[in-house]
Structures are given as structure tokens and as C-alpha cells.
């Protein structure tokens, strides 16, 4: 009977599952797997510079390609370094397979060298995890892991593989069937779909509140959304995670909703009579004060995960299904029953009133680059290239969400749920590997970029022409903003002191560095960045104390948006302070 080592079996199954790229970092407990990798040609291994980078790169790869991202790290510190990325993928429903080395089975529990309880540590921040104790189990486990990571609500799956299991051999003869214990929702119940369509068709003020679930469902779901919006004539808003599912250039687009969403999106959510939540999860950044959240609407919620239903907001019609399939069903029913698009004239007139507030306007300047202006110019310069944009976390992330506009899914990579600074650069690297010909830009803050700055070397090594566009305001701007609004401008530890010279740093890593602080020269500088065939770090010096508006302060209702700096009081009560 032919036998193979656990490491070889692992590689075989990865290839069988269609894996072509693995993001990893070697170490003692994965040496047998690295040796097996060395002896094959089907899988490309991308050597990152820190395991957090591997996990975020795999996330970026997954979000931009729709395929699961694969991570390979060693035991102990290798695994613990990857935990932030695993938790990030869990929050944002990103499919990952994380392979971690472990000490040999006979040493587990003995505080052996580089032993950490990886399965224990990742248990509640992964969709599922395994400790493999026998190479004969490996094939079944890895196959099941891929199915769990990618089906239903996607998420990260960790497979912890002790070193002796990588070395020991097992028969490859037995074709074990993949286990099928994992079930997930697909089509919706037609009775529920009928009811939903009826509600939408009779609504006077409907709204489609879309989210990351549509991106998770795949490009067909975005197509269905466009058709559904067209058929029903309803306005569309999206969460941070769902941007691109409906085109920002579309007529029905209201912009993002939530804490830093547009006035029109939040007002429409508040005033609608039928809310159709499509693959979004009523996050606290979106709902604001719960008892004031869209008080008079009938709420329909389509989500593949039953636990998302009624988690924070009680809904009237929960539909547990794949959102792409459910929207397709709605379209079929709508057409089958020959519903007519309502005029919804009054509703759109009210929306026009809210739009007229022009909530995203900001004070201009000829002296300094306003951060919003920088994003606008970047968008203008790149929109015909259909770029993939990743971000770090902070004000720049919100400005990018507000002022960069997406017309297609899988073009926007951002850490929403966990809000992980340091996500953007490795995510851009992963996205670039998955889309070698795409223009990939990480819109960054000067603080966040330093959290995984070592990944610049990864981009250099693999000749990845990623661009990092830093809105350098010399502050942890988002923190500074909250301190200004909530703590009477006591700026405790939020200044980005001792910043590196980003241009010199770029050059040190073999990148091109560009600096610009003059609004008049910005377009030329951006053009120079785009013309360069290689990685570029762009140090865009922006106005230092701009705040990101509109903003719904913690604990406030959608109708209590702060639209500009004049409306800021500078302090908040304890109830509001206690909310994140």
C-alpha cells in the first residue's frame, strides 16, 4: 500500500482543493511541511515578515479573489502572532485555512519548546479548529476544513498539526468520503419570499440595507442586488463591509450608513417603512442607539447565519438563506406576480431633501491638503483602472469609505468588525498576488501603517507594485477626534511622535517614496505614483486636525448626526462614554 508522510498528504489535499498560494513563515514545528513544499511546484509560498502579515495577506487574497486564503505558521509564537488575523477574519466572515505547527503529540502539555495551546487560544475566534493526532485523519480533516471555511457564513478554520504527525506516514489508498456533518442554509422558503416581496411592493418608503454578506455570497449576489433595486425602485445603502455590491454610481445609491455614514442614508433608515436587510448584521456602528433605530419600519432580514437574526435588533421577517439566492427568488416572484415598480415619488423627494444637506462637504483649503480632498483626487485619478483599495483603521478608513466610490464587489478590503490597524498593507499584498494585473492601493494612516510596516519587504521580494497612500496627519486621528469630542480635547497619548521619514524608509526597502504637502501639486504627485511600475509609498501630508463627519456620536440616534465641527460640544455623559 503506498504510504505518504503527513506533510505530503497535506500538500496533496491543498492542491486538490485548488490552492495555489500559501502565506507563511517557517519554524521548527513546520519544517517537515516546508520540506514538502520545497519539493513541489504547484503551490507558491509567499514568505511574509511577521505571521500577522500572513493572516492579513491571506484575508486580502480571499476578499479580492473569492477563494479561501491559506496560512502556514509554526507553533507557539508563530501561531500566537497569527491570532489577530484569525480573529479579524472571524469577525468579518473571511474564509481562511490556517495551518499551524504543533509540538509532537507525546510532548503536548509538557510546556515543550515553542508549545502553545493553539486550539485553546483560537477556539473562540475561529469558525472551527482541529488538533490532528494521526496522519490518516489529515485528508478528511483538511477537506472538511475547506468546506467549513467557505460554505455558509465563511470564516477562518485552524488546523493544528503536531510535528510527528507531519513526519509519520499513512496510507493514501483509502478514499474516505468527505464528512457531511456540516449543513448550511441555501434557498429561502418561498412563503417567506412571497411575504417579503409583498411587503416591498406595498411599501411607501422602502430601503435596501446591504452588507458584507452580499460580497460573501459572490458576484452573482451583487448582480441580483442591482436587479432587485431596479425592479423595486428602492434606495440602497450599505455597511462598510458591503461597499461595491451596489455601484456607487447607481441612481439608487445613498452612500454608506452608520456612524460615519451619509445623512441621507441614516435619515432614510430612520424614516423608512420597510427595511430589507440583505446580508448585514445590525452592528452597533450601524444602528446607533437601539431604541431609536428605525422605530416605525417593518424589518425583513436575510442572513445565512441564524444567530445573526434578532441578535441586536428584533426583525419582523427573518429569512435564513443565502442572500444571493434569496434575492434571485425575490426577483422571480416579483416578475412572476407582475408587480409594478411603485412611483415612490414622495419618498425620493424626501431623500432629495436630505441629499441637499451635502453632508460630505468639507472646508476647502489652498494651503493644505484636506484629507477628504486627497481621497477625492486619488479616486479621480484611478477610477478608470478599477482599483482594489485596502485600508488601515482610523479616520483615513472612513474618509476612504465616504469619498472613494466602488462600482464592483471585491474591490474594497477593510477591517470592519475587529478594526485591526496594520491590516491594510498585508491585505494589499494578498490582493495583488491574487490579481497580478490590478492596481492595488492601501489607503493608510501614519500610525496604522507602522503596525505591519515590515511587510514592505514582502512586496519588494515578490515584485508586487502595491501603492501605500498615507494620509499623514501626525495624529492617531480617530483617537484624537474622540478625545476632542468626548474628553474636552485632552489628547492623551494620541500624537504620532518620532515618525520615520517615510520617503527614506521606502527607499530603504527598495520602494519609491513620494511626499506631497501642496494641494496644487497633488494631482501630479499621484500621477507619478501611478506611473511607477513598482511599489510606492506616498507620504501625503494632510491637514492635521480635521475630523471625520458626519458622525453619530456613541449612544445617539440616527437623527442626531453631527454634520460639522460647529456642532461639537466637546464632552459626553458617562452612559455615552461607556459605549464604544
Amino acid at each position, binding site marked *: 500500500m503506498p504510504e505518504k508522510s503527513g506533510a505530503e498528504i497535506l500538500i496533496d489535499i491543498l492542491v486538490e482543493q485548488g490552492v495555489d498560494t500559501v502565506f507563511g513563515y517557517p519554524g521548527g514545528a513546520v519544517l517537515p511541511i516546508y520540506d514538502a513544499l520545497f519539493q513541489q511546484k504547484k503551490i507558491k509560498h509567499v514568505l511574509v515578515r511577521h505571521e500577522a502579515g500572513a493572516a492579513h495577506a491571506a484575508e486580502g487574497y480571499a476578499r479580492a479573489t473569492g477563494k479561501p486564503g491559506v496560512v502556514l505558521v509554526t507553533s507557539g509564537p508563530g501561531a500566537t502572532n497569527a491570532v489577530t488575523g484569525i480573529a479579524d477574519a472571524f469577525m468579518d466572515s473571511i474564509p481562511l485555512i490556517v495551518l499551524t505547527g504543533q509540538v509532537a503529540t507525546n510532548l503536548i502539555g509538557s510546556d515543550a519548546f515553542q508549545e502553545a495551546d493553539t*486550539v*485553546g487560544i483560537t*477556539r*473562540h475566534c475561529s*469558525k*472551527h*479548529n482541529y*488538533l490532528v493526532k494521526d496522519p490518516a485523519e489529515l485528508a478528511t480533516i483538511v477537506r472538511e476544513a475547506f468546506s*467549513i471555511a467557505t460554505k455558509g457564513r465563511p470564516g477562518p478554520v485552524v488546523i493544528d498539526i503536531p510535528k510527528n504527525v507531519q513526519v509519520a506516514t499513512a496510507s493514501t489508498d483509502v478514499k474516505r468520503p468527505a464528512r457531511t*456533518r*456540516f449543513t448550511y442554509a441555501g434557498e429561502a422558503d418561498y412563503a417567506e419570499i412571497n411575504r417579503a416581496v409583498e411587503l416591498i411592493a406595498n411599501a411607501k418608503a422602502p430601503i435596501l440595507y446591504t452588507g458584507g454578506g452580499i460580497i460573501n455570497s459572490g458576484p452573482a449576489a451583487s448582480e441580483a442586488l442591482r436587479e432587485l433595486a431596479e425592479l423595486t425602485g428602492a434606495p440602497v445603502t450599505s455597511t462598510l463591509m458591503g461597499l461595491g455590491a451596489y455601484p456607487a454610481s447607481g441612481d439608487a445609491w445613498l452612500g454608506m450608513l452608520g456612524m460615519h455614514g451619509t445623512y441621507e442614508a441614516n435619515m432614510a433608515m430612520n424614516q423608512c417603512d420597510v427595511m430589507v436587510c440583505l446580508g448585514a448584521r445590525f452592528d452597533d456602528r450601524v444602528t446607533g442607539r437601539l431604541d431609536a433605530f428605525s422605530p416605525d419600519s417593518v424589518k425583513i432580514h436575510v442572513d445565512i*447565519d*441564524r*444567530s445573526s*437574526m*434578532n*441578535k441586536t435588533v*428584533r426583525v419582523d421577517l427573518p429569512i435564513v438563506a443565502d442572500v444571493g439566492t434569496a434575492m434571485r427568488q425575490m426577483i422571480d416572484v416579483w416578475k412572476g406576480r407582475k408587480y409594478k415598480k411603485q412611483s415612490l415619488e414622495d419618498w425620493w423627494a424626501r431623500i432629495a431633501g436630505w441629499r441637499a444637506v451635502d453632508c460630505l462637504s468639507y472646508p476647502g483649503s489652498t494651503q493644505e491638503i484636506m484629507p477628504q480632498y486627497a481621497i477625492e483626487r486619488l479616486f479621480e485619478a484611478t477610477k478608470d483602472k478599477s482599483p482594489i483599495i485596502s485600508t488601515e483603521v482610523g479616520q483615513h478608513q472612513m474618509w476612504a469609505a465616504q469619498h472613494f466610490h466602488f462600482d464592483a464587489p471585491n474591490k474594497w478590503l477593510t477591517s470592519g468588525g475587529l478594526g485591526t490597524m496594520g491590516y491594510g498593507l498585508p491585505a494589499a499584498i494578498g490582493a495583488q498576488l491574487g490579481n497580478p494585473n490590478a492596481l492595488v492601493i492601501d489607503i493608510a494612516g501614519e500610525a496604522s501603517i507602522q503596525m505591519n510596516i515590515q511587510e514592505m519587504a514582502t512586496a519588494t521580494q515578490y515584485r508586487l507594485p502595491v501603492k501605500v497612500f498615507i494620509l499623514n496627519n501626525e495624529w492617531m486621528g480617530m483617537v484624537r477626534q474622540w478625545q476632542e469630542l468626548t474628553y474636552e480635547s485632552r489628547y492623551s497619548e494620541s500624537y504620532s511622535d518620532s515618525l520615520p521619514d517615510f520617503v527614506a524608509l521606502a527607499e530603504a526597502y527598495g520602494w519609491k517614496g513620494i511626499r506631497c504637502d501642496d494641494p496644487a501639486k497633488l494631482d501630479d504627485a499621484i500621477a507619478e505614483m501611478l506611473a511607477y511600475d513598482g511599489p510606492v509609498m506616498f507620504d501625503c501630508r494632510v491637514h492635521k486636525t480635521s475630523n471625520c463627519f458626519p458622525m453619530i456620536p456613541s449612544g445617539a440616534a440616527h437623527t442626531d448626526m453631527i454634520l460639522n465641527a460647529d456642532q461639537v460640544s466637546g464632552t459626553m455623559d*458617562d*452612559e455615552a462614554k*461607556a459605549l464604544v
Partner: protein
Amino acid sequence: MQIKQELTERHVLTLTVDNEAGTLARIAGMFTSRGYNIDSLTVADISEDHTTSRITIVTKGPPPVIDQIIAQCERLIPVHKVTDLTEAGPHVERELALVKVNGTGDQRVEAMRLADIYRARVIDATVNSFIFEITGGPDKIDTFVTLMREVGLVEVGRTGIVGLMRGAGVS
């Protein structure tokens, strides 16, 4: 600022789960990490081929939280089925307790008398101690234990609750 408390209900949940390493930690840990209560938890292998276990969890929470608990349990890969016995209708709940009572003279006689009323069995006895075994619903056991405190209870062990639906239906 005060931290708000909500009214809670007690629910008995039964879970059918894969009998594999880490399943119990996954479930118990999910309760702690999401801030849910566990009043009692029992687990035992129930299948002929040793692949399936049944877990009974008694939990407390406001109704929407109970609903979330069930949904969160169902999300776990090794969990196949979750039944809320409290919602499912008539069901029986049983728990077993071992109660050690030390004493002599009148106190000892009184302990015996009470045990008799509560149909507790003596499963160990010395001249100055008894161990009683009692089975019943949680209220009965609570009352028995409270009474025994008066007559020399020194130690008690409880299994936690198991439950089944009444009638022919299965949970």
C-alpha cells in the same frame, strides 16, 4: 453610572453533539466568552458506537438571550441538534445528589425521618454518618439539601440536570 440588569428566565437545553476532543470546551467556552450563564451542565456518551454525546445545560437569561444561546450553540460544528426543553412543552427533569450527614442521637433520627419522607436512600452508613442518595427535580433536591443542613449536612455532590420530553416525542 449604573450597570443595568435584566429579568431572566431559566431554560433547560439539550444538545446532541459529536463525541470528540474539545467539544465540551467549545460549548462551555462559548457560554463564557459570550457572557451567558450555565447553572448546570451534564454530558455523557449516549450512542452505541460512542460517536454521539448528549449535553444538558440549564441556563438563565432574558428570552432574546436564550434564543441567541440556542443559535450560537447551533453554529458550532460538532453540535447537531439543540432542543429547548422548557419551550418544547411537558418534560421531566431529574438530578441525582449524594448528601453526607454527620451526627448522633436525635439529630440522626431526624435525618433518617426526613430522608424517608423525601424518598432518599441510605447508601452508606457508620455510627455517626449517613450518605443519602436522592433523585428528583431540582426543587426537591434543593429543599432536601436545605433541610439536611439543619441536621448535620457536611458534604453534598450533585450531578446536574438531565431531561427528556414527556410522551413519545424525542428531543
